[in-house]
């Protein structure tokens, strides 16, 4: 079951998107819940309450809190990287602020049904990949953690540190073996000692990557060209 929020101060737009999504859910035969909000504050309050959304269609020109502000708060104050945001606007030409929210897409009004569906399918693909689990063993206990919670892996001697949103796990292993278990579409081996999750990367540079928490990881020389090719490849396949 997916939950897709629509947030726009124009009720006609909301109704339009809602009906497109519901039509899609019938056709694709999956359950989708489509709550509608007419202001950024309403949506934000709902998120603060802990409601989980898979995708948010967010208008930028909202009355009090504009869409970019809302997006920023979702990423920074709530620390939520997982919810996909698709911006909707009647005009183009926004500053870097918008891109710092790392939206999935940007759509222009008038609403195009095909594009809405395209975005939903993209979201589904990502969701399926990210809800897979990474399994590991500490002593005699088995653990599993959903991929979307993993920020990065670090190797320290014979052990691997798994850094997730909430805690750090330590287990015996080698990065090469860890890499085999991971989806190469999302995880990147950038250094002898690091595997980083693309979801939590805020900036790519040729020699380093910076995570959303500000931490910078070097990309070692032999990996740089590969990382660049990986970026190009993903781009061609449509992220």
């Amino acid at each position, binding site marked *: 079951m997916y939950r897709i929020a629509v947030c726009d101060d124009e009720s006609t737009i909301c109704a339009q998107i809602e009906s497109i999504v519901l039509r899609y859910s019938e056709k694709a035969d999956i359950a989708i819940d489509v709550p509608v909000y007419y202001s950024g504050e309403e949506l934000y309050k709902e998120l603060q309450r802990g409601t989980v959304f898979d995708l948010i269609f967010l208008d930028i020109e909202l009355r009090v809190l504009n869409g970019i502000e809302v997006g920023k708060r979702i990423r920074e104050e709530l620390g939520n990287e997982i919810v996909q945001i698709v911006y909707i606007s009647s*005009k*183009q*030409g*926004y*500053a*870097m602020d*918008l*891109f710092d929210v*790392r939206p999935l*897409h*940007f759509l222009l009004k008038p609403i195009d049904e095909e594009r809405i569906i395209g975005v939903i399918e993209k979201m589904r693909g990502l969701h399926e990949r990210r809800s897979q689990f990474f399994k590991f063993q500490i002593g005699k206990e088995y653990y599993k953690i959903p991929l979307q919670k993993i920020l990065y892996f670090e190797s320290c001697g014979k052990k691997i540190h798994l850094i997730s949103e909430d805690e750090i796990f330590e287990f015996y292993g080698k990065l090469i073996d860890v890499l085999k278990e991971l989806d190469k579409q999302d995880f990147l081996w950038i250094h002898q000692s690091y595997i980083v999750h693309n979801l939590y*990367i*805020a*900036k*790519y*540079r*040729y*020699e380093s990557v910076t995570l959303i928490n500000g931490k910078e990881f070097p990309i070692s020389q032999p990996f740089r060209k590969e990382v*660049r*090719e990986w*970026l*190009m490849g993903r*781009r*061609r396949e449509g*992220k």
Partner: protein
Amino acid sequence: MEKSTAALLYLSGNLFRIYVIYRFFKLFFEKAYRRNTLILAAYAAYFILNSLAFLLLESPYINLFTNLFCTFLLTYFYDARLRMRLLAVLMIYAINLTCEEIIYRISLAVNSAETLTVSIIAPNLLLLPLVLSFGKLIDLKFGQRVSFVEWICMIFVPILSIFILSFAFNGNADDTMAAIATAGLLVMNILVFHLFDHISSGYQKEYELAFQRQQNEAYENQLRLQKKADRQMEVFRHDIKNHLIALQSLAEFKDNDGLVSYINEMTTFVQKPELLIYSGNTVIDSILNIKLQQAKEMGAEISTEVNLPEQVPVSPLDLNIILANLLDNAIQALQSCSIKQLFVSVTYDKNVLYIEIENTYKEKLLTKGSKLLTTKKEKAGHGVGLSSVEQAAARYEGHVEVEHTETMFTVSVLLYCFSQQENYIIKQ
């Protein structure tokens, strides 16, 4: 040989050697000077100390020691770590010794008599092209163009000077004149290369200027299109009253079809038909609009995906070089196609800029005698412009990839964004 002549020769040779060290350090330490005037004073002091040590002490070991030590001290006028400083000194000395060795061997083989010229002047003349070539190789790495003429000049002027030198001292009675001639030759080398630097930076500037002009044209075109669109909007706004009356009467008469078609007409009018791209980023908008207009006039089917911030940390000049060249190639390829399709994508994500241009093309069939040869990838749309694009991309540690199927030709470019002031070698 008289002592004064020898001294003159030594001083000129030493001066020249120090000039070469100056050039080498300028290249080696990217973030150079603390203060320009202080540097020159330091080099002058180096020259004086060094020469005095040689002329007065006449001990080769003390000479070597003072040389190395003073060169090392010079590195403190540049911003670098200790190991880089040591490396710089070691490198220049290694190259220097190599040059001396080469000249020595050659002079033995040729049985040359003049020892002072051989041991001091010639090696330094050889040192210069080596250091300059090193510099040009660094330029190439940073995407600057180095012409064939530059290479020829860099290598042959000093080497020819060495030949001329060997004549200057061949059994010549007037040693003093020969010594002055040698000093003159060295000064000439320095002047030639200074002149050369000015000329090559001039070429580079001209090249950039050409693109600036293109960019300006694109901006002007953009402005014109926007003004036109604004004027149309003005007229529309003025007429809105009449439009509303028309709509009202259509609604009252419940003429739904009439109503819908009237509204559709208004909507198409409100769109900006000639401004194909309006992403908000003026640089991209201007270049794309002017080029896509050409494609449209050819009857091409155009689709685009432009999604980037109003300002990206990539220089407009480089964006122009990349987009203008790729689009020119694409448009040229489209000319010989019956089905003309063009797809342009410029997107930004996590500090990376992606550019993709896809177009239909016709594989030209070449004939050689009676045989039919199909084009290689290199000929189909791989214009001269592509190397400029690769150089521009290299400035951002980026990459260019060219692919093609039987019908479609695709060029993809990836750039890591950063503002050039931070990272490009500041050429002075």
